């Protein structure tokens, strides 16, 4: 139903962009893909539009990654966000560095753990994550615990290895 999609669009668009951004690492591309997913939803009118959108978005992001790999080109355009306005070049460099570290830390996760974590962060419930990933619902807590621990450890290791001056608060 278009009405339902309109509601979902309002509540989920940002989350879908965020989810895609952490896969393609290009803000404009993430927005384009999210809008493409919603445009498809308007045509297909799926029953469970929210879950459907994330499945379609994940597939589109995967296709992008495959294409990039095939072309042996990096579509990582972390610095090409002209709309990003920051108060100083130092802050911009810091933000880029931090984002790069988080990205590298996410890359340390297994694909399934990473998917579960990104879906959770995008606002999906355990039931929805289970349906999306094929994991048992009872395994989602353990999967997220492992994913979170690995993310924090990998990030902190990068900070220590890179000699970054940021405060490390945990573990």
């Amino acid at each position: 139903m278009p009405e339902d999609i309109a509601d979902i669009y309002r509540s989920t668009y940002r989350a879908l962009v965020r989810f895609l951004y952490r896969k393609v690492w290009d803000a404009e591309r993430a927005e384009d893909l999210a809008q493409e997913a919603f445009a498809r939803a308007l045509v297909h009118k799926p029953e469970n539009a929210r879950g459907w959108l994330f499945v379609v978005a994940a597939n589109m992001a995967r296709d992008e990654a495959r294409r990039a790999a095939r072309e042996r080109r990096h579509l990582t355009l972390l610095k090409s966000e002209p709309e990003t306005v920051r108060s100083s070049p130092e802050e911009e460099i810091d933000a880029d560095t931090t984002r790069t570290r988080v990205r590298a830390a996410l890359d340390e996760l297994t694909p399934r753990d990473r998917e579960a974590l990104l879906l959770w962060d995008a606002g999906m419930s355990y039931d929805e994550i289970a349906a999306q990933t094929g994991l048992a619902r009872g395994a989602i807590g353990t999967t997220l615990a492992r994913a979170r621990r690995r993310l924090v450890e990998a990030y902190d290791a990068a900070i220590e290895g890179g000699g970054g001056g940021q405060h490390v608060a945990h573990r």
Partner: protein
Amino acid sequence: MSHIDEGALHAYLDGELASTERKTLEAHVAECPACGARLAEERALVKRASQLLGLAQPLERPAPPLHQLRQPRLMWRLRMPLAWAASIVLAVSLGYYLRDPRSGMVTQPASSTVATADDRAMSAAAEEKAAAPRERRQLNQSNRLNDALTGGAVGKTSTDSHARHTTPTSPPAAGVVAARPPASLRNAEPVPAVVPNAAEPAARAEADLSMLRGRLVATEWPVISREPARRILGAEPVGVPGLPVRDIRRSPAGDGTVLVEQQLDAATVIQLFQRPATAERAAYTAPAPMRLDRSSGAREYAAADRLARFVGALRVEIAGPLSQDSLNRLLEQVKPLP
């Protein structure tokens, strides 16, 4: 009771435990200092992981209205009659301009030294200046894409040259700019790349018309699969590497032309018209005449306003809602589809 596993602790912290399980867990934690300490640790971990993910998110921009996601197609349908009228007016103007021997429209082969990278950059600068914000975003996307495809070489050249020539001392060759192919393509026989030497509004209208024509073609040309396209061309159809192929179409006139449409982004499609080169080479030794008749299929979009080059055994023209410079750079990337 045995200690609580971390999965249950995280499910509890995420608010995903059923009420009975939650009560059981809370009762246990109240009695078990070890599990109480672990719960505090896991809570800190959940918070920290969430903070880290929060550091890697795009700048929040408002979502476009949902109805706009469908708008482009509707808009094009409404504007089609207007597009035809505008294209005829532009074609007549260009035709008149091309016939004037003093206008400086001199066709030169790309292998000559008419256009240097700096000329192209100046041309690009003029076009970017003329571009509306919407087009500029598309141009940026195209440039970013080119950067991605070329390791940044093309985009950097353009940007650097642009910076050096904010006040150009000599204008680029009037009317026609012969695009110099990249080193890897210089063995291929190039075709003059034509850029009308028009004022800014005309350049803008040109870009719009190019897009409008594309939409018209897309509705009239039958979609075919890869194999028939290969048969028609006698070679693999070509495209810009890294871009998804939206459709492959054939000319309704049966003149051996195949159209490959590729998605540059969610809202932008570029079109690559291609046909066997053998029959066309002779025709391009002289400037192509502007054709106005609508009955001749692809030929109505004759070469006066399209960039073209030979790729292997094919002659390829490019069209799309981008500046000529952007289209030219995309055209330089073209090679047989994987």
